[in-house]
């Protein structure tokens, strides 16, 4: 837009702009990352499968690892394919095999690297074709696969790879990284705004950065209101109030709160997703938490079946109230 100072960088998503280029900079999963760091230094990377939920740094780790390992040769010696590339069996046969046979002069101890992102979306035929390629060229080419669930990779491939599991990032880890970005981009913020971003991201770094950027470019200020406007999720404070009101026995208030949310146009799925997250973190008696979660789950199931009416949501609140009354000391 008008701001000419950072117009050149304006178009780059922050996710890309602040993608760590060194393995050491990767946030979270310290065990896995420290190991990759050693591999980046010593070379001789075994075939790897990185498995974990989205936004936890799998792709980043592999890319950083490849670049650190190969240095200036990375351009020639890395083949990256992801789900958006055509990865049918022919590609595996041709592209990957051709790459494996390609001559690249590398210092001893280094290997060409084939990166297959989102490998769980590869057809099993393509994975089958990969199986032998992996073995034959193991002395010149190593494979790194990233996927969400390792069980979707066929067994022969799992057998040829070491599996490294990534788990969701903790709030602190995300916060740390957000602070770095906020500082570098000079984003004006209030702490509650960052808190809101972390809440909406739910352990997903990519989403956190995207939400931050969206909020910034939309409102130029990161506070709670703006974040939830941008992410278009029900404000957790409203939802939290509802839960509190139910616990306090103010059923009518809770219902009108729900009505308010519903009238704002949030889809029942969104409301219930937020509700579930709130309940998960709400400090209440164990029995109540269990019952609330159970009922939320059932309500979610009904909504998934297409019964997403206001009545269902109110019914859910009523069930909460019932559970509360059952448990309350007389």
């Amino acid at each position: 837009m008008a701001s000419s100072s950072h117009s050149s960088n304006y178009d780059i998503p922050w996710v890309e702009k602040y993608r760590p280029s060194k393995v050491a900079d990767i946030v979270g999963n310290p065990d896995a990352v420290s190991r990759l760091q050693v591999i980046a230094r010593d070379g001789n990377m075994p075939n790897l499968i990185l498995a974990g939920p989205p936004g936890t740094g799998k792709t980043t780790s592999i890319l950083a690892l490849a670049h650190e390992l190969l240095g200036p040769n990375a351009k020639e010696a890395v083949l990256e394919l992801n789900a958006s590339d055509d990865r049918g069996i022919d590609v595996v046969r041709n592209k990957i095999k051709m790459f494996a046979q390609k001559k690249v002069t590398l210092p001893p101890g280094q290997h060409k690297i084939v990166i297959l992102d989102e490998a769980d979306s590869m057809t099993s035929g393509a994975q089958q074709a990969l199986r032998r390629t992996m073995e034959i060229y193991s002395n010149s080419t190593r494979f790194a696969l990233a996927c969400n669930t390792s069980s979707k990779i066929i067994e022969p491939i799992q057998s040829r790879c070491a599996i490294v599991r990534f788990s969701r990032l903790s709030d602190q880890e995300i916060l740390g990284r957000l602070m770095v970005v906020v500082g570098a981009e000079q984003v004006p913020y209030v702490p509650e705004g960052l808190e809101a971003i972390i809440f909406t991201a739910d352990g997903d770094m990519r989403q956190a950065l995207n939400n931050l950027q969206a909020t910034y470019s939309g409102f130029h200020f990161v506070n709670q209101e703006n974040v939830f406007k941008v992410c278009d999720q029900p404000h957790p404070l409203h939802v939290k109030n509802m839960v509190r009101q139910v616990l306090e026995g103010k059923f009518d208030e809770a219902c009108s709160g729900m009505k308010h949310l519903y009238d704002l146009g949030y889809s029942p799925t969104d409301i219930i997703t937020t509700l579930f997250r709130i309940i998960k973190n709400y400090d209440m008696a164990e029995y109540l938490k269990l019952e609330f979660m159970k009922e939320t789950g059932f309500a979610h199931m009904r909504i998934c079946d297409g019964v997403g009416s206001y009545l269902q949501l109110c019914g859910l609140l009523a069930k909460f109230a019932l559970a509360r009354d059952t448990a309350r000391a007389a």
Partner: protein
Amino acid sequence: MRKIRDSSLMILSSDEEDDCDYKPNLHRSYTKKPKSRPFITRTNPRQPKKPRVSGSRSRSSRDSPSLFEQVGFPEEDFEELFSGSKVSAGSGTSNVNELWVDKYKPHSLEELAVHKKKVEEVKSWFEERLKTTKGNLINNVVVINGKAGVGKSTTVHVIASHFGARLCEWNTPTPTIWQEHVHNTNTGIQYTSKLDEFVNFIEKTRKYGLIPSSSSEDAKPSIILLIDDLPMTNGRVAFERLQSCLLHLVRSTQLPTAILVSDYDETDSTDHTAQRLEQLRLSLENAGACKVSFNPITINSIKKMLSRICRLEKCSVTDEQLDLIAKACGGDIRHAITSLQLFCVKPDLVLNGSFSTTSYSYRKEDDIDALVRGISLLFGRDETLSLFHALGKFLHNKRETEVANAITPGDAFLVRENFSRLSLKMDAPEKVLCQAHGQARPVTDFLHENVLDFISDEAMDDAWHVSSYLSDSDLLLSSFRGMLARYNEAENVLQSAAASVAVRGVLYGNSHPSPPRWHAIRKPKLWQVEKSMLHKQKEIVRQRFIAYNGSSSSKVSDVATEDMPVLKWLECRASGFEDNQALVHCNKTHDESCDRMSLDDRENDDDDEIEEW
């Protein structure tokens, strides 16, 4: 041994491939080059272009052990020369840039981790074929099946070298790329699909045997043909072609041949490839191929192997950690070794520059140990292992012993006596679960299987609570049955709700945990009936195709209740009559499955129809 390799029939798909294999280890290429030249020349003059009987270079260099050593020696000298200047190089062994799986490939029968009996079985089978002159044996094909990584191909390789036999492999040829294709069309060479090439190859070897190389030796070494990488088939026609080609091979080949087929878990039985392979294997067996199935490798053998590697690599891994790795790999030794390689990449090596840092690493040992313990839960094919720790926590249900006042919420919402619980002695269950990479379905199944052991015998009410919550969680998961978890936002909530309900239900419900003592956590048997039902059903469907050439319109239930008993009865009558082979044939192989099937299936039939169709 050297001779064997020299004469081995190796035609490389392309010269580039060969060169490429050397490229990354330039520093040692000089040792290999002179030796390698002879192989590049095509040793089979009769077939100038195709089919390519390509034994891959890299592979064969691993196969014949003595040669490997031969090549290895000068290389070691070389490295010594180098490392001589840098005096220490404590971890010099780990610098050899090879995967440990390749580096520690077994070279003798004794080193194999496969069960001795199975090795013996395969070995004696080959011995029989190699010793006797051809002609008097009916079947010359052995089908070896087993899960991935149990050492199928390694066994064959080792046995071949044990007998000094030449091992000829079918390797999928390099694919034709478009430019090449265009070039070829100009020169008048027709395009052939990979399946065509495979079929050609099989036909030629079947009819003429493999042509021995030109080098005239006094005694021709015997040949073993190994088919490891079956071509992929898309569609029924291609598959049938492959099948018939292999059937011909089974019936009439003169060479002892090993065909390796990987097994898959039942879980991904929707996968066509797995089904096809299974079908192929059965039909080959029916045609008279000898069958050997390899079991997953036992934990003890894997451990032995791993500790040997550790000794050779001079990396210190405690027994306990080896145990973990061995258990986590699920009988897959290749994966175990790969995991070990990753595992032995210890963060302390970061500090291990060219100068000696032994003292430093000693100091850090405690830290590293803690780190290692954490990491050990990170990998392994068997996701359930890391789950065990979390499950143990949930099942043992450790609580604070007294009421902490701070726990009650500030606004004094008091919970009735029988609904209140002491606070948990662990992190929030969701957090524990997340760290253990627990998926909702296995967690629920495991809890269901094991929770009763942990509830004290008198607490009937507790059991009632727990199972009602578990059933709720099962209901929440019902839409995912038979599906692997997907990371979809909507499903995600359901999944985590189900997991939370299951875990918290167990924690809450089990208010009188039985006194802590040691329990083994069992694998869930909850869905075994369903699984075997599906399996049987597939079997029936397949059989129906064999029996009626796919033209039958009868339902599965009809087959199970009417046709099968009749066939069985017929078989009893017809035993001894070769004429009825068609009938007996399909019956004989599935004899035992029939027995069980007819019982199970009649009961389950109604459900089947709903679920499957």
